[in-house]
């Protein structure tokens, strides 16, 4: 697997959610993802960026373009140094929410991507990696 592009975006305020939506959209257009694929990943990015800001107290997102055996993918890594998620299984259930949202952020985002990885440690932070491969 090769990384051909890499950029980090700071996530501190709610305006940064709009910014990452635009950024991810731009990258996906350049990578020639279909409109539905673009919409799914931009939506997932929006959900996860909001989690990072609201629950993680802010953090950063990393955008990575991957090439692997001739296929191209976009990977997004959301990281914060917040309180962490105490019960990962519970957090991935639909409707589970500690904030004011619908509780769809994690479970919903997982359905929108090809690969989803969630790591969290109490008082250390949370790291979520999502990947979408382009359908050729």
């Amino acid at each position: 697997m090769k990384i051909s592009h890499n950029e980090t975006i700071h996530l501190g305020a709610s305006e940064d959610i709009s910014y990452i939506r635009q950024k991810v959209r731009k990258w996906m257009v350049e990578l020639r993802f279909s409109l539905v694929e673009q919409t799914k990943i931009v939506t997932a990015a929006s959900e996860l960026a909001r989690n990072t800001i609201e629950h993680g107290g802010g953090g950063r997102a990393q955008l990575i373009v991957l090439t692997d055996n001739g296929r191209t993918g976009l990977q997004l890594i959301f990281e914060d140094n917040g309180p962490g998620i105490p019960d990962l299984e519970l957090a991935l259930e639909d409707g589970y929410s500690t904030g004011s949202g619908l509780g769809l952020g994690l479970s919903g985002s997982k359905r929108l991507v090809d690969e989803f990885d969630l790591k969290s440690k109490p008082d250390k932070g949370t790291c979520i990696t999502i990947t979408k491969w382009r359908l050729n």
Partner: protein
Amino acid sequence: MDKIPILKLKDLLLVTIQVDMHDRMAHTLQEDLTERVVQDGVKGVLIDISSLEVVDSFIGRMLGNIASATRTLGAETIVVGIRPSVAITIVELGVTLEGVHTALNVDKGMALLQSLIKTSSQEKGT
């Protein structure tokens, strides 16, 4: 632009969301719309989101909240112009837009709104 303009058209309010809304803007819209429903005494609200490339759970919740709040005040809300790619995505995300009426475009939304207003006034016997 930090505010989304609200237009009054006869007995309804028309909102066209043409920018990528950040969260604060969405909150402001919710407050402004609820306020205007009372001020202008309208029976319906039409929200055109055909320019929105993304509807996440936050926007979904805001649309639901607007619909509930305006209904409480006697006005129906109709969301029009959801893009096909957005429809596919919000279903997978799990956003159901419960309690929100939808229509394909502004024209169809107006027609639906008229019939909803008619039904509700008949129910009330007025």
